[in-house]
C-alpha cells in the first residue's frame, strides 16, 4: 500500500517529506557544511571542487552552481538547508524566497508590503492563481 500524500496537488509547493529527504540527503548535508566559516571560504574559492567532495548528483551540483533554488528543491533540497547557500552569498531570506517566483527583488518586496500573495486560486493545481504553473515566471519576467 502506498503512503497517503494529500499535499501533492498544492501548486508551486514541494513538501519536504521522507522521499524528498532521501533524494536530497547529500545536497542538504553539503548545505549544512556551510555553517562553518572555513567551509564557506573554501566553497567560495572553488565551488565546483568543493561540490565534488560530496556524493551529490550532477543535477544537484548544477542546480547549486546556477543558484536555482527551485531546481535544488526538486532535487531534494529543503529551503532551511538551502538558505545556508544564500547566507554564504550574503542574501537575505526574502531575496532567496523571491528568487523562486521569477519576480525581481522589488516586485517581490512590493507584493509582501501589499499583504503578500493571496491564497485565492493557489490552493489546488488547476486553479488560476499566480502561483500556478501556467503563470510562471511571475512579474515582469513573465510578461516578455
Amino acid at each position: 500500500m502506498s503512503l497517503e500524500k494529500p499535499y501533492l496537488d498544492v501548486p508551486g509547493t514541494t513538501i519536504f517529506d521522507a522521499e524528498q529527504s532521501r533524494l536530497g540527503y547529500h545536497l542538504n548535508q553539503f548545505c549544512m557544511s556551510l555553517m562553518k566559516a572555513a567551509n564557506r571560504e573554501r566553497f567560495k574559492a572553488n565551488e565546483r571542487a568543493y561540490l565534488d567532495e560530496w556524493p551529490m548528483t550532477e543535477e544537484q551540483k548544477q542546480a547549486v552552481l546556477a543558484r536555482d533554488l527551485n531546481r535544488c528543491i526538486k532535487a531534494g533540497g529543503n529551503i532551511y538547508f538551502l538558505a545556508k547557500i544564500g547566507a554564504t552569498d550574503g542574501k537575505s531570506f526574502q531575496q532567496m524566497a523571491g528568487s523562486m517566483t521569477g519576480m525581481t527583488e522589488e516586485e517581490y518586496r512590493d507584493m509582501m508590503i501589499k499583504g503578500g500573495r493571496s491564497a485565492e486560486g493557489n490552493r489546488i493545481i488547476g486553479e488560476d492563481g499566480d502561483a500556478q504553473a501556467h503563470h510562471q515566471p511571475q512579474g515582469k519576467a513573465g510578461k516578455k
Partner: protein
Amino acid sequence: MAKITASVYTSHVPAIGAAIDLGKTQEPYWQPVFQGYEFSKQWMKDNKPDVIFLVYNDHATAFSLEMIPTFAIGTAAEFTPADEGYGARPVPVVQGHPELASHIAQSVIQQDFDLTIVNKMDVDHGLTVPLSLMCGQPQAWPCPVIPFAVNVVQYPVPSGQRCFNLGKAIRRAVESFDKDLNVQIWGTGGMSHQLQGPRAGLINKEFDNAFLDKLIADPAAAAAIPHIDYVREAGSEGIELVMWLIARGAMADIDGGKPPKVAHRFYHVPASNTAVGHLILENQR
C-alpha cells in the same frame, strides 16, 4: 508546586532578529512590528517568570538530516546562540533549568510522549527572536529558559492534536514539580508564510485571524485542523502554528480551569516573508 501562569505566542522571523541587532527597529518598515510588542515588553517586566518553557523549531541548525527528533527537550545548563551562516546573533547565552527540564522529560515520557533529551545544543533564531521581542536587548535574559524543539522541517510533522495533547502532559509535569516556580510556556513560529517555490510569499490574513480566534476561544477546534489545511491556507511553512497548540494545551482551562484572559493580541503583515501574530494569555486564579 510549580505553576504555569501564562502562555505567550509569537512569530519568530529571522529578519526581526536582524532588525533588532542592526538597530533598524524605528525604520518605517519595522516600526509597526515592534510597536506591537511594546505592551509585551512591559508585561514581561510586570510578570517576570522564574522559568520560560519555550517551544520552537530548529531550522537546520542544531539538527541536520543526521538526526531528526520530533520532540526534543533541552536539559543543559546553558545553550549558545548559533551561527546560522551570518555569524551568531549578539544576544546573551541562554541559561537552562536542568532540574525542571529533567523533571518534565521524565514525567512527559511516562505520559507516553517519546521526547529526545538533549544535553548539548546551540539554539537558533527560532528561540532567540521571541526572547528579543519580549525582553528587548538585556545583558542577560531575565530568567532560565527550557528549549523545546519540534520537528516542523521534515514531513510528517506532529499533528496539531498531538501537540495539543502534549501541552496537557507538560502542564501535569510542571505541576508535579515540588518547588514553587512561576512558569510561562511560549509557543512560537508562524503565522502564514511560504518560503519556497513559485508560491513563496503566500499570506492569509483571514486564516490567521480565524486561527487566533479559535486558539483563544475554541482550542480543541484549532487542534483538529489537519496538516494539509495549514499547507493550503497558510503556506508550507505555516505548519509551524502547530507549536502554538503545545502552549495552548498547557493552559488551565483545558483541564477544567477558567478560560484564560487575553492580555494582548497583535497581528501585522509583513515581516520579510511572514505574517506576524502575537498573543498573551494569562491563567485566571
